[in-house]
């Protein structure tokens, strides 16, 4: 097993954990970006060396995007900033919720989903971003509304081999897709329920919490909704419920296995009005048959647990077998080196964990 880097954004800075021992022991460093809430982290492995990207938000000094080409030893940002709204939008950036490297055949492309809901695209590896105007100008935009966490595009999923096809998800608003490289966008929420609206199956307006897909089966998506867990087998065009095997259909993260199609992970919470795990048991749920059945993964995870796992605080690495990771609002980082069968703590007593990503680096 080569070395694995686990990057964890928290409410008060960024922590890095490295393991060269089969992902069973970790060396944790940090925090960097002290007192910045790091809602988005990314590890871009398409270049000659991994590039780390961080979306940090200081309550006093505003949001910024930084990058590092030496695994977090030094960080850089352009003098004039990497990402801001154009003057004519009369809009200011609140937060960068998602940083996502683009398709493999576009090595410089990085996407950013931000609050207020907008999509930005970089062609220089995340050093400068431009607003994706067709989505900003979409006629639905004036009807997108903020949920409790704000109004943001929090998920960006470029197709692994077709750069023209990108899916995004926002709260609230739902899923939107482009099939022409971002020139046009269409709502794509057929089958997803919005129980909090008079029309419970609207064209758009759903409060989608996270979407994910396996790069080896790119037409298949998994979705954690604000109540509801769904799968699409047609490129996010239509969705069917896969919540029956779960103890609850509420939660935030959804992670697709990096190379086993049909395998996905989530972290159920009891309900919108009871945001703790069912029976106060910290459990990751895994499906190996695309949501037909789910298994509670408990080995190494505590009972008597009243924390939550936020939408970007769960991830998988790119190793085989895959490592799976999650962080809690209680400030704990957990890792599994065997696809979720067994878990151990990487760190405890951190600030609230907002985002995690992991990758092999050696």
């Amino acid at each position, binding site marked *: 097993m080569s070395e694995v880097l686990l990057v964890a954004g928290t409410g008060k800075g960024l922590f890095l954990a490295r393991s060269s021992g089969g992902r069973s022991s970790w060396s944790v460093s940090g925090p960097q970006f002290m*007192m910045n809430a790091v809602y988005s982290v990314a590890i871009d492995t398409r270049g000659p060396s991994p590039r780390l990207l961080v979306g940090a938000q*200081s*309550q*006093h*000094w*505003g949001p*910024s995007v930084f990058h590092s080409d030496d695994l977090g030893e030094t960080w850089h*940002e352009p*003098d*004039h*900033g990497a990402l*801001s*709204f154009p*003057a004519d939008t*009369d*809009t*200011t*950036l609140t937060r960068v919720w998602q940083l996502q490297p683009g398709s493999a055949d576009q090595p410089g492309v990085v996407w950013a989903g931000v609050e207020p809901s907008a999509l930005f695209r970089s062609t220089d590896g995340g050093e400068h971003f431009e607003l994706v105007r067709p989505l900003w100008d979409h006629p639905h935009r004036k009807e997108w509304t903020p949920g409790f966490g704000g109004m943001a595009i929090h998920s960006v999923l470029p197709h692994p081999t077709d750069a023209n096809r990108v899916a995004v998800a926002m709260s609230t608003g739902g899923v939107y897709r482009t099939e022409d490289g971002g020139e046009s966008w269409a709502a794509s929420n057929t089958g997803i329920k919005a129980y909090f609206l008079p029309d419970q199956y609207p064209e758009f307006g759903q409060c989608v919490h996270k979407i994910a897909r396996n790069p080896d089966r790119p037409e298949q998506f998994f979705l954690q909704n604000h109540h509801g867990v769904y799968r699409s087998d047609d490129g996010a065009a239509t969705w069917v419920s896969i919540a029956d095997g779960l103890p609850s259909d509420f939660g935030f993260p959804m992670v697709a296995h990096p190379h086993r199609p049909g395998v996905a992970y989530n972290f159920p919470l009891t309900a919108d009005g009871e945001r703790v795990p069912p029976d106060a048991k910290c459990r990751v749920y895994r499906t190996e048959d695309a949501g037909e059945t789910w298994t509670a993964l408990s080995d190494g995870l505590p009972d008597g647990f009243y924390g939550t796992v936020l939408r970007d605080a769960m991830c998988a690495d790119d190793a085989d077998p895959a490592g799976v990771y999650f962080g809690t609002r209680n400030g704990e980082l957990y890792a599994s080196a065997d696809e979720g069968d067994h878990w151990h703590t990487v760190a405890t007593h951190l600030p609230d964990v907002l985002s995690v990503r992991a990758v092999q680096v050696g």
Partner: protein
Amino acid sequence: MAVTVVLPGALRQYSGGEKQISVQLDGEGDLTQLLDAVADVHPALVRRLRDEQGELRRYVNVYVDGEDVRMAGGIGARVPAGAEVLVLPSVAGG
């Protein structure tokens, strides 16, 4: 006469380590003109004081000769020649 901008410790990494910046304005100006002049030299500093639409960030307090600019025209507050402009983070966060 130059205007002196006094910075909190958290921002000195964006001013080349300087606690104070001296800015030469052409006669009396306003806070926007002052920040424009500072941004010519220290753009990463000024991005932390005002957003991309030119407004002071919510938790940034600026005092011109001891007067809170939010009570004196905000980003358009008058900055006399020779003034001391003090930047402070407001009490915020948890």
